């Protein structure tokens, strides 16, 4: 079944483990920049600033904390390697199997943090790899 514009009426049935899009858990992010530095495609943008948290106990010290101003992933560059997810020490990123976010313009493929946070609703399933079928006798080798 396809719609009049040629787009399939129903998306493909994919495994819940599929790496479709990257979700951001904003409150876990410490703006440490590790993901932006490890990204081989340079497609991850972080801006942050420092705020001072006043001491909570008498005689205690003020502390400074990083506050996230911008977190964006440009999915027009992303090659879905997942290195940013692997490298995050605070599990602020995870996979979601959603893949229905095509756009008419490459510029619109940059997901800012609100959109990235939206993908949290559908975390990818965890667990061992899908059982692999034995290789096809013709194409397998």
């Amino acid at each position, binding site marked *: 079944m396809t719609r009049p514009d040629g787009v399939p009426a129903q998306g493909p049935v994919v495994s819940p483990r599929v790496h479709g899009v990257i979700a951001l858990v904003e409150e876990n992010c410490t703006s440490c920049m590790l993901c932006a530095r490890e990204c081989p495609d340079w497609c991850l943008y972080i*801006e942050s600033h420092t705020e001072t948290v006043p001491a909570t106990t008498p005689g205690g010290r003020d502390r400074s904390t990083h506050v996230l101003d911008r977190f964006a992933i440009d999915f027009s560059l992303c090659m879905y390697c997942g290195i940013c997810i692997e490298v995050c020490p605070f599990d602020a990123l995870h996979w979601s199997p959603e893949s229905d976010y095509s756009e008419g313009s490459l510029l619109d493929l940059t997901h800012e943090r609100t959109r990235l946070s939206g993908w949290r609703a559908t975390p990818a399933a965890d667990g061992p790899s899908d059982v692999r079928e034995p290789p096809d006798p013709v*194409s397998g080798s």
Partner: protein
Amino acid sequence: MSALVRAVREVFADDVDDLLDVATDFGSTTIHVDSGRWTDSLEALAAAGATYFDFLTAYDELENGFCVIAHLSTPDASDHVLLRTLLARDLPAIATATSVYRGAAWHERETHEMFGIDFIGNDHLEPLLLPDGFSGTPLRKDFVLASRVVKDWPGAKEPGESQEPTTSRRRNLPPGVPQGWLREESTPPNAGSRHDKA
């Protein structure tokens, strides 16, 4: 030993030195031959049953030169080999595989475009994929990747920064980008003068 490997070994029976290596890794056999024996080897493999030409490509081995590699298989995929040869870095050229496998023309065209390797006997090495007027051979490792030069590295900032620092603090450098590619070459301020004295 597979029939394909045996066929190639027979070709080189009299001059074993041209058969540089036969190695099997992860279930794939790679036959490394002297570049002058490329056509001989292809013919032997085709005659021995490897009539399915899968692909031909190259890769950059830096100072060693360029490796040209062809994957050939029997039509039922029961046997397959990678045929490999090494070309000198300056003026890399090799005989065309199209005399044996006509389907290689397209692959040689692309390999010529991406690596600047000449396939002698293939008269149609026209640009295939790159934009009109593009100069350079982008899959050579010494080809400067424009997107790494033009764009600022997003990882240069420190936590708590919104913009790249303008102070003289030593900047982080993007991993994997060769020295000399970045716009402001981020060598220590004294490096240039030391070089001048030398």
